[in-house]
């Protein structure tokens, strides 16, 4: 997270050259001002994101204003806590997914980390997934509050490069930023960031 916005970067983990990279979607938009990155059971994550999308649009309909990022995160965690909505659609197991929810509201940019228990924490920087321990400690060293978006992109990608087994290419990483609105980078933009590494 920076003063101007939040940067999310994910490793796509393309397991076969036959796999279409653009179909692996691990960063999704929830609303114009909120996006989220996921790690874990991606199918479960899609349910949570869909619920968040409905909640944010309901809020816009009822109150004519964008939902704050914390409220959006709370709405996702309420669902995670109940294992689903209502009596019939609720699951008999928790949602097996951690999310990084990045957004921009009247309180500025913010980043929240959720886990299957339904708890959420606000963070300045966070890594989730299989290489998260190493990535977290690298983040602790490299993060400071005065970063610009460009610097944040570089740091995020360099940390990904450290924990990834394959080489970083525009096809096996995804970057998105929320500053102040959500934008998923095109392969060309990702290429430009890789070139700066």
């Amino acid at each position: 997270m920076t003063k101007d916005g939040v940067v999310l970067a994910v490793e796509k983990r393309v397991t076969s050259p036959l796999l279409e990279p653009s179909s692996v979607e691990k960063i999704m938009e929830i609303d114009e001002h909120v996006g989220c990155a996921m790690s874990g059971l991606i199918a479960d994550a899609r349910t949570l994101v869909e619920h968040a999308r409905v909640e944010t649009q309901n809020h816009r309909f009822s109150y004519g204003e964008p939902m704050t990022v914390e409220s959006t995160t709370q709405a996702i965690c309420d669902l995670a806590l109940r294992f689903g909505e209502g009596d019939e659609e609720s699951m008999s197991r928790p949602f097996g997914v951690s999310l990084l929810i990045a957004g921009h509201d009247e309180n500025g940019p913010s980043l929240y980390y959720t886990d299957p228990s339904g708890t959420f924490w606000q963070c300045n920087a966070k890594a989730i997934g299989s290489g998260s321990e190493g990535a977290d400690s690298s983040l602790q060293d490299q993060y400071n509050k005065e970063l610009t978006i460009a610097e944040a992109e570089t740091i995020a990608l360099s940390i990904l490069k450290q924990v990834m087994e394959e080489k970083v290419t525009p096809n096996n990483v995804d970057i998105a930023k929320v500053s102040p609105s959500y934008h998923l980078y095109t392969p060309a933009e990702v290429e430009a960031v890789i070139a700066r590494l």
Partner: protein
Amino acid sequence: SAQNGLRSLRPPRSRRPRRNLIKEGRKRDTGHRTAPLRLLLQATNSGDSTTSPPSSPPSPTTAMSRRGDWVYENNGGTCVAIAGADYCVVAADTRLSVGYNILTREHSKICELADKCVIASSGFQGDIKALQKNLAARELLYQHQHNKRMSCPAMAQLLSNTLYYKRFFPYYAFNVLGGLDSEGKGCVYSYDAVGSYERTGYSAQGSGSTLIMPVLDNQLKSPSPLLVPARDAVTPLSESEAVDLVKDVFASATERDIYTVCFPLSVPRDHRLLLFIHLPLY
């Protein structure tokens, strides 16, 4: 005997036409369902209060619906709001009436919903109380869920949705919402009975509205909402000038409107804290 004499005037039972109660029942039902909406919209169109169903050429439906299905009452009163650069004045008179009678002289039509949002409603007080209670409860829930008080534009949208929710059995409430928006500028939202709303620089609703609006139009000269680029509708008047204007405007309405009383009791305004100015009753 007299009874026998009376009985002889009526045709014998076998010759009177048999009433088809089932058909009559069906017609009665239709009248009942649409009566509130139809009669309410007629009332709003005429702009005056009607406390009884209007007379209409006899037809099966309306004749049946006259059977005490009129569920609204107009308790009269007028509400006015004016938005300024950093303030908003919301005023309402305090007379509650029914027909030609006064029920009380000291009834406030204004409800403070949030620290920067105040609603004034005129019409049927039963519906108004329910509506204001509903909105206040929703505001409290919002406060707990989102850790902040509701802004005036958010309350405006909520009120619109609440009113439209009862599109087919409306709240007989003519509302004016006033307050400060997120930038601290005054905002006034004006509603009809089913939730259509618009942000304006000033508004009057209620029995005296037709007397007051032309005066406000003359004094405040709001730019058309159709202009591009959009122009600010807030008035350049100072707060005390706006309060004086509101008092004058109520004085004018009182001259000719029996439902409106002079010297409004509550004129809440503010951007720091809400003050209620109590003026002597007339």
